[in-house]
């Protein structure tokens, strides 16, 4: 039987809701986050940042600052080499600007000193001579010929005539005859949308402690979603061997994709190397907003043709994304995801990226998809209104299913979209009455999910307990689900398993925690490691019983003779085998260092009710329901938490969160006061419905669930607001001034 083949099985641990292993540490303050570690002789680092949106660095004079008391090291880009790899060079230049500053907050130099006051004084004493350059912070403006060019020599090879050299990336997906498709439509709608960049808003700012010895060996403790990514990137920038840099991930106070790159780690290492002492570098919230990764800003055109009875005949979308000052391909994920929910004969999507004087974009939950699907689902909703059709029925009519060739080329296996739509339709929320100034919005959402590479070691301790060691920081409850999976496979209680996230030297490479991959992929590796361990335990039992190893099988947490011919022996439990293991052949462990495809796409459907105050444009989210396909929910509490968390973040994105740049190109709202994340009282209870259509690529049927949930809220809320206000809105965020303006213009 193939390993990933699913058997009907009765789970004992999987699907239950045990107490989370990280809970007590987090609520008592015992958990060690990025800024919680200190070392003897440690220095404090501070970063000098660009006060301009775009400027040439003419000169950096550190002579005065170097002489100040307590100052032990100052670094600039000149202290680093020039990596050959373009992407690595961009990452380095984002950590310390090379010849130009490209956005407000771009790091220019960093100081390590004995006290924060000394470091601050040194920053003030560094003299930077800038030559200001014209800037551009809007994606549409940046694409026009004549726009200030953010980076020379990075333009896409075939930039269309009349466009700027800021255009760096392009992609195209789809199939079928658009013209013929639109000819069959009874209604064709064409709309344009814009969305502002938002920030992941994790509660823990980036923080690290770096220590490089005189022998060139380094240690780094940091909050990250990927210690191996940090090691490879920093080793590349500092020209160290990966083996000489040990990176230990701390407990993480939220990442959401924003901690899948480096901002401060190479700088802290460079300072430590220069000063010969450990260096701690912690970003302030202002720095996090100005210079760590927000999302893309987007501008999108969507054209859809539909028959009178709700069948989509053709669909087309052009996405213009800006991922800030360096090239990136987020537009590709947007262009792939835009129409993924639908089974279409004629579909085409085009993605473009343009450089702007904004910080370098980094992933935020399902990067690229929410803004693309926002535009598509918005047009669909308007078409439903215009044709008098039920929004769920129209989506069911067009929904992708097993065997559908998706708009981005992949043919789907088993997927849960129709099941989720039917569950949404059956939910009492969908038929609940609405009051005046209230509207109900709906949207489908999609995310690819990834597999990738991970390493797991499962050690059977002599007291019968088990440690799972793995290399993926836990940002969404993975230690709980991995412990549960190990307990399930081994047939022992969940409480007997403890899962630990290890440093880069303690276990093999693991890709970054991203792409909703950890419960799927590390879970898969844990199953394999557990099965290796149970095989070894069966062999021990066989040796004790004096029978062939393949005459023993692992059932209910014990080695048992396989059938009557194997002989009569009482089952030998994991605890019994473990207790004698050191005398029966040595320690027992299972390993898996592996890669996997087959992550299994995930679909979700969100419903929300909104009330709009027509006199002020104030919005109140009255009710919210998330339906999502989890394949198989290992720990349903965490799955529901992911569904609610994505919805909460999406509500913020839709209603009030935005990067606001002034005419001067400077960020106007680098703080939680004016960057308006929803507070608890802004949100209703978020109801959840877990749908389980097993992923054929996983033995339990698991699909990633971390990202899909942020995809539908933008359109679900936009559709609810548009219906409540009686006027369609085409721009995010739908802050009160914009809603009021639309309501008043409608009259």
């Amino acid at each position, binding site marked *: 039987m193939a390993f990933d083949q699913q058997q009907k099985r009765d789970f004992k641990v999987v699907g239950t809701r045990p107490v989370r292993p990280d809970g007590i540490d987090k609520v008592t303050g015992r958990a060690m986050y990025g800024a919680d570690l200190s070392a003897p002789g440690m220095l404090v680092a501070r970063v000098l940042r660009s006060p301009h949106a775009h400027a040439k660095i003419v000169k950096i004079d550190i002579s005065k600052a170097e002489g100040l008391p307590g100052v032990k090291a100052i670094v600039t880009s000149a202290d680093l080499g020039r990596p050959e790899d373009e992407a690595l060079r961009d990452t380095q230049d984002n950590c310390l600007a090379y010849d130009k500053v490209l956005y407000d907050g771009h790091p220019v130099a960093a100081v390590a000193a004995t006290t924060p006051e000394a470091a601050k004084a040194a920053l003030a004493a560094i003299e930077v001579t800038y030559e200001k350059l014209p800037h551009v912070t809007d994606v549409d403006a940046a694409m026009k010929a004549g726009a200030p060019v953010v980076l020379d020599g990075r333009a896409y090879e075939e930039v269309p005539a009349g466009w700027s050299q800021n255009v760096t990336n392009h992609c195209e997906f789809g199939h079928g005859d658009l013209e013929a498709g639109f000819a069959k439509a009874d209604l064709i709608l064409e709309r344009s949308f814009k969305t502002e960049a938002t920030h992941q808003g994790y509660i823990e700012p980036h923080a690290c402690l770096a220590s490089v010895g005189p022998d060139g060996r380094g240690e780094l403790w940091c909050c990250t979603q990927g210690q191996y990514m940090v090691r490879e990137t920093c080793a590349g920038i500092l020209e160290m061997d990966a083996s000489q840099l040990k990176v230990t991930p701390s407990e993480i106070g939220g990442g959401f994709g924003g901690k899948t790159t480096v901002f401060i780690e190479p700088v802290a290492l460079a300072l430590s190397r220069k000063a010969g002492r450990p260096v701690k570098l912690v970003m302030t919230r202002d720095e996090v907003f100005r210079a760590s990764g927000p999302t893309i800003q987007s501008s999108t055109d969507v054209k859809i043709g539909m028959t009178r009875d709700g069948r989509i005949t053709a669909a087309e979308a052009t996405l213009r994304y800006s991922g800030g000052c360096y090239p990136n391909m987020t537009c590709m994920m947007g262009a792939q995801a835009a129409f993924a929910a639908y089974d279409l004969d004629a579909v085409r999507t085009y993605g473009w990226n343009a450089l702007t004087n904004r910080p370098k974009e980094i992933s935020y939950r399902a990067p690229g998809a929410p803004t693309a699907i926002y535009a598509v689902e918005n047009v669909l909703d308007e078409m439903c209104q215009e044709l008098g059709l039920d929004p769920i029925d129209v989506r069911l009519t067009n929904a992708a299913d097993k065997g559908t060739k998706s708009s981005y080329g992949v043919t789907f296996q088993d997927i849960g979209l129709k099941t989720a739509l039917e569950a949404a339709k059956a939910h009492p929320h969908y038929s609940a009455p609405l009051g005046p100034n209230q509207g109900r919005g709906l949207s489908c959402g999609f995310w690819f999910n990834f597999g990738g590479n991970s390493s797991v070691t499962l050690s059977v301790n002599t007291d019968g307990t088990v440690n799972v060691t793995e290399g993926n920081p836990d940002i969404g409850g993975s230690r709980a689900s991995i412990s549960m999976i190990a307990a399930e496979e081994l047939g022992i209680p969940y409480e007997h398993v403890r899962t630990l996230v290890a440093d880069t030297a303690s276990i093999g490479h693991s890709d970054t925690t991203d792409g909703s991959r950890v419960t799927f992929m590390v879970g898969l590796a844990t199953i394999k490691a557990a099965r290796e361990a149970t095989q070894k335990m069966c062999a021990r039992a066989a040796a004790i019983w004096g029978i062939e190893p393949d005459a023993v099988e692992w059932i209910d947490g014990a080695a048992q003779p396989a059938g009557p011919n194997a002989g009569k022996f009482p089952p030998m439990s994991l605890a019994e085998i473990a207790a004698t293991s050191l005398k029966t052949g040595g320690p027992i462990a299972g390993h898996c260092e592996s890669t996997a495809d087959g992550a299994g796409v995930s679909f979700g459907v969100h419903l929300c009710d909104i009330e709009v105050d027509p006199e*002020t444009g104030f919005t109140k989210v009255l009710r919210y329901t998330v339906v999502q396909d989890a394949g198989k929910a290992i720990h349903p509490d965490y799955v529901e938490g992911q569904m609610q968390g994505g919805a909460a973040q999406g509500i913020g994105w839709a209603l009030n969160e935005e990067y606001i740049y002034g005419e001067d190109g400077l960020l106007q709202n680098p703080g939680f006061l004016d960057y*308006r994340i929803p507070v608890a009282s802004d949100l209703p209870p978020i109801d959840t419905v877990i749908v389980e259509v097993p992923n054929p690529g996983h033995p339990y049927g698991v699909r990633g669930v971390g990202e899909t949930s942020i995809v539908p809220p933008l359109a679900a809320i936009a559709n609810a607001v548009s219906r409540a206000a009686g006027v369609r809105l085409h721009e995010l965020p739908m802050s009160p001034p914009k809603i009021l303006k639309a309501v*008043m213009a409608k009259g």
Partner: protein
Amino acid sequence: MRYAIPKTAAEAASLLMEEAARVLAGGTDLLVQMKSGARSPEVIVDIKHLPGLRDISREDGGFRIGAAVSGAEMQEHADLVAAWPGVVEGVNLIGSTQIQGRATMAGNLCNGSPAADGVPAQIAAQAVVRIVGPKGERDCPVAEIPTGPGKISLGRGEFVASILLPARPERSGDAYLRFIPRTEMDIAVAGAAVNLVLAADGTVDQARVALGAVAPTAMLVEEAGAALVGTKLEQPALDALAKACEAACKPIDDKRGTVEFRTHVAGVLARRAARIAYVRAGGRA
């Protein structure tokens, strides 16, 4: 930097004569400003321990509120809430539950923010501020304290010791509303306070309307009050009130709201606050 706890008002005034001295009451503005680097005082004068500064006392039928009385303490004072619900609800909108344990009405006034939630209802209430300084005590109408964003009329060495909310006639009520895009933890984009006294038949006898966040300082809008006097808040009166408020607005265009938005919403809030104040005064809406 020095931190001082004066025992007498005279000592406090003398400390405040020093260069770069700042008053500390709740500290919910000052500490944030220091942390962000916006202010670097040389002397911090903590006035919380001065006699009477943490008391709410009755005076001529009104309430004298010490400058170090927190928002939470005001909220827990049932008689004060009954007499001046609008003033108290304005103060209680500052920050969060935690902030309310420290933030003071006087501090909110002296921070000089045009958007201060604690100020418009005080103006509508005709509160009188007792100021202590090197030359002794003086009283000043609250509306004359703020002079512009971040600026107040107090002289060097002076500080606010208490604020007097006057006695309430029968059939009086006040209310304050502000607009923020969220439900809490935000800065007013527009705010409106209305203080009404009704005649026995429910007709508005006296009306004072003050707006916040729509001009360099919170301000009394006399025409807005006049629009309500002699009415029972019928629709034309409310429309006239909103129009008068809109006409008085001189807001800025910024990340928190456009001129157009602030102006419109100020009128809407005034209308809504007037209805609440009217009901609180015993009027039948």
